[in-house]
């Protein structure tokens, strides 16, 4: 079966009666986004005498038998009465619509749609608008007009409409507002097309009745009114101070004056009252002015101003510095009532600015014990001293190690301050005396003296003392560190390999180092703080120093000998002729079966050492009756008792021999050693000197310095004095120090053709150094 959907029903008139055969109708098919046939109007039809109407989508004048009408498509059926077959006729004239209406159906699966419809004559336009009830003179106000002439009603369950257009199609062109008329009640009437919004402003205050009339296509209209109360505009206050910049009066002791600078668009201000507040530590001097004209200038007639260093005060200027509240009361009329506005604004009386202190140092890098000159380079100094004789100017201070060591007071800007520092912990201070307009004030700065950075290398015994003097770039010192490089060639000019570096710490200023290899070395010292500084020294080592750290047990008690914790007891007599080195040795001739005893008060961990060394000269030889050595622990046990004949040659008499006894030879010990005992036997007779414990084995065991890993740890390090660190530096492929020689050793560092130690800028400091090594000679 082809397209076949029936729409039918009965048509009723405005009065509810059946329209018989007077109602014409025409239907619009709209696909509404479906794949139905396109938008189509059928032919105009007229109801039967029973007022019955009927149409079918499959009719040839509509979609036809080949048409497609899917669900959700729309059918708008338009009805009307009148002497016209054109649904778009007007509602005036002879061929006009009399009653009309339209209904709309959404297609479903149903084949039959039954609708009773009603046509109605013209309905008055719906007036929808809004307008202000309060306004101001010269301001424009808009009447929002949302009126319309499209109407809806329900008839026997059918929704009827006075549509003008639908789905882009003209339904009936009479359902529209053709113009809107605005009467603004001041003689102005605006006639605007359609529902155009109206707008209007009034040039004087008053109550106005605004009338709007919307007129439709049938010349019928709807009318409404609103009352708007229009007032004069209020003044917007503001205050001008002639002497202020952004509400700041920059210069003290300036006469101040004020003026009303706000708005008064409708000239409604009648008078202004003024209060200029001025309260503070220098007095309470407010100024009040009543009934001033808005154009009058208000002066602070009660202000006293300020004075300094004999400079006179200016009447009319603020008595006090800081914030000042200016309060005005504005009297005005809005066209209906007398009103007031209170307004305040704060103006700040600024102070004179102080100087920006600064100074320079000459030379830029000072040297200890040399004169340093300081120049005042301060700026903005006009308030310092103020140029008057009773005002103080500048003071200079010089501090070393936190203590003031020199000071000059009340000197001029051009004064040159000179001092001679003897300590790098040195500070220069500069103080300025000035006045801010009300108060005498001082400004002060201080800064560290900046010193040149210099590294010194001083040979001492079998090692070198490194020291660095100076400051960082800003004069401060936060830490020191060292680096040691070895020349990879024999030229003395590099390239250089970093073989050791110290940690960065404030206690790294002085270091003791020893070298275990020959060649050129470069020592660089750094000072940290506000900009790191450095200096370096180069030195040439041409003979390895067989340095041996030791704990001296006894080497005589004379002036050149060193005191120790050990005490010598037992047999023997100290005498200069019995010495190996230093002042005295021990004459133990006739030792026989007696003992020589060395006692330590708390005991020594013998395993911190590698060997026990002593120098012995046999006064007489007796191979049969040996001298023995043993150790006693603090807990009272004894070590193995060793014969000296295993360590020296008994047949060599009257010659100093060095006995080196490995600690391991004494066997296992269960406690720290508190005494060492030499026991003679019949005919034993000796001179004894320089008894010590050597600690060479730690030379190549230590891998850290002060808890920080060392570069080239094979170099090792050794502690020799308290917590001081003695790095032992040698090349990377050498891990063991040279064995200590058992023979007298000549000075270990010699200057060859090239200087052994050089500074960066001068010839070698050292000649041919000879370093005494008393314990080794």
């Amino acid at each position, binding site marked *: *079966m*082809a397209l*076949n959907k*029936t729409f*039918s*029903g009965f048509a009723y008139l405005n009065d509810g009666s059946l329209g018989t055969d007077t109602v014409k109708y025409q239907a619009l098919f709209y696909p509404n986004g479906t794949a139905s046939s396109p938008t189509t109007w059928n032919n105009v039809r007229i109801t*039967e*005498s*029973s007022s*019955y109407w*009927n149409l*079918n989508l*499959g*009719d*040839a*004048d509509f979609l036809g*038998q080949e048409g497609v009408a899917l669900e959700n498509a729309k059918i708008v059926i338009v009805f009307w009465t009148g002497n016209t077959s054109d649904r778009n006729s007007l509602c005036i004239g002879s061929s006009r619509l009399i009653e009309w209406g339209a209904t709309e159906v959404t297609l479903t699966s149903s*084949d*039959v749609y*039954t609708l009773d419809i009603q046509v109605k004559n013209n309905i008055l336009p719906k007036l929808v608008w809004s307008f202000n009830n309060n306004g101001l003179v010269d301001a424009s106000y808009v009447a929002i007009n949302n009126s319309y002439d499209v109407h809806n009603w329900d008839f026997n369950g059918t929704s009827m409409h006075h549509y003008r257009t639908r789905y882009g199609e003209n339904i009936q062109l009479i359902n529209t507002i053709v113009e809107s008329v605005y009467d603004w009640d001041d003689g102005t009437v605006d006639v605007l097309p359609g529902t155009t919004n109206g707008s209007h402003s009034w040039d004087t205050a008053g109550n106005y009745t605004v009338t709007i009339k919307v007129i439709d296509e049938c010349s019928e209209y709807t009318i409404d009114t609103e009352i708007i109360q229009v007032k004069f505009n209020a003044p917007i206050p503001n205050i001008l101070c002639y002497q202020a910049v952004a509400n700041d009066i920059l210069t003290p002791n300036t006469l101040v004056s004020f003026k009303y600078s706000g708005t008064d668009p409708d000239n409604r201000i009648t008078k202004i009252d003024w209060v200029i507040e001025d309260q503070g530590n220098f007095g309470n001097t407010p100024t009040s002015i009543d009934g001033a004209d808005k154009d009058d200038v208000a002066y602070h007639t009660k202000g006293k101003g300020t004075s300094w260093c004999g400079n006179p005060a200016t009447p009319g200027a603020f008595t006090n510095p800081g914030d000042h509240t200016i309060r005005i009361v504005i009297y005005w009329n809005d066209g209906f009532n007398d009103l007031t506005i209170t307004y305040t604004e704060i103006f700040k009386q600024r102070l004179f600015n102080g100087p920006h202190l600064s100074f320079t140092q000459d030379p830029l890098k000072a040297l200890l014990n040399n004169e340093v000159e300081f120049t005042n380079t301060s700026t903005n100094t006009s308030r310092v001293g103020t140029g008057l004789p009773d005002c103080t100017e500048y003071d200079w201070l010089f501090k070393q190690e936190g203590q003031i060591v020199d000071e000059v007071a009340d000197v001029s800007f051009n004064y040159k301050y000179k001092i001679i520092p003897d300590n790098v912990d040195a500070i220069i201070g500069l103080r300025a005396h000035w006045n801010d307009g009300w108060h005498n004030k001082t400004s002060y700065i201080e800064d560290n003296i900046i010193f040149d950075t210099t590294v010194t290398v001083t040979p001492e015994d079998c090692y070198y003392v490194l020291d660095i003097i100076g400051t960082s770039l800003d004069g401060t010192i936060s830490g020191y560190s060292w680096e040691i490089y070895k020349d990879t060639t024999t030229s003395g000019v590099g390239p250089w390999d970093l073989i050791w570096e110290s940690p960065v710490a404030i206690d790294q200023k002085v270091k003791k180092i020893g070298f275990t290899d020959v060649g050129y070395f470069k020592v660089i010292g750094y000072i940290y703080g506000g900009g790191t500084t450095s200096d370096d020294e180069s030195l040439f080592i041409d003979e390895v120093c067989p340095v041996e750290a030791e704990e001296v047990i006894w080497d005589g008690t004379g002036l050149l000998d060193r005191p120790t914790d050990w005490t010598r007891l037992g047999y023997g007599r100290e005498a200069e002729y019995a010495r190996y080195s230093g002042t005295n040795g021990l004459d133990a001739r006739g030792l026989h079966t007696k003992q020589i005893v060395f006692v330590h008060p708390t005991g020594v961990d013998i395993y911190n050492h590698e060997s026990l060394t002593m120098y012995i000269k046999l006064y007489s030889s007796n191979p049969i009756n040996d001298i023995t050595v043993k150790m006693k622990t603090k807990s009272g046990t004894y070590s193995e008792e060793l014969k000296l004949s295993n360590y020296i040659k008994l047949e060599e008499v009257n010659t100093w021999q060095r006995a080196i006894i490995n600690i391991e030879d004494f066997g296992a010990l269960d406690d720290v050693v508190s005494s060492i005992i030499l026991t003679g036997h019949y005919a034993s007779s000796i001179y004894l000197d320089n008894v010590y414990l050597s600690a060479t084995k730690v030379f190549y065991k230590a891998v850290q310095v002060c808890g920080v890993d060392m570069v080239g740890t094979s170099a090792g390090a050794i502690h020799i004095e308290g917590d001081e660190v003695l790095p032992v530096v040698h090349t990377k492929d050498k891990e063991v120090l040279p064995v200590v020689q058992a023979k007298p050793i000549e000075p270990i560092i010699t200057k060859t053709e090239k200087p052994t130690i050089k500074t960066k800028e001068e010839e070698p400091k050292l000649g041919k150094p000879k370093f005494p090594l008393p314990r080794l000679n």
Partner: protein
Amino acid sequence: MIITRGYGPCATTSSGIGSGYIELEGGWQLVAIPIKYGYWSVVDHKHVHDDVTLAKFENYVLNQIEDKYGSGIIEVANTFTGDAQMFYSYVVDVTPTGSIHNFKLMYEDTSGDEVTGFWVKVVGNSPPYLISWGNI
């Protein structure tokens, strides 16, 4: 004889030509009844062929169905005429008896009488519905 569609002299008289039964199945069904005059008598419960009363859908078909089976059996009956290329749509309980949409079962055309073929939409709940035509 059951005639469901066509032209011809078979319907030139009101009686004695033929008769038949039609089973109206649910949904749309195409029907033709070659009767020019007559109506269903709800008093005698049979067709009356009086040579006066024009046989239309309502008086000949619908009244028979409603007399036999009650209302609500048929929703609409449509015929599409070749001359007007329009539907005559008889909507049960809506279309007035006097409306042109209460179409005749036979039409006089210049070439003679024509039997109206029409679609009827059966919406009753118990199809088929048996109806008769002619002198049965």
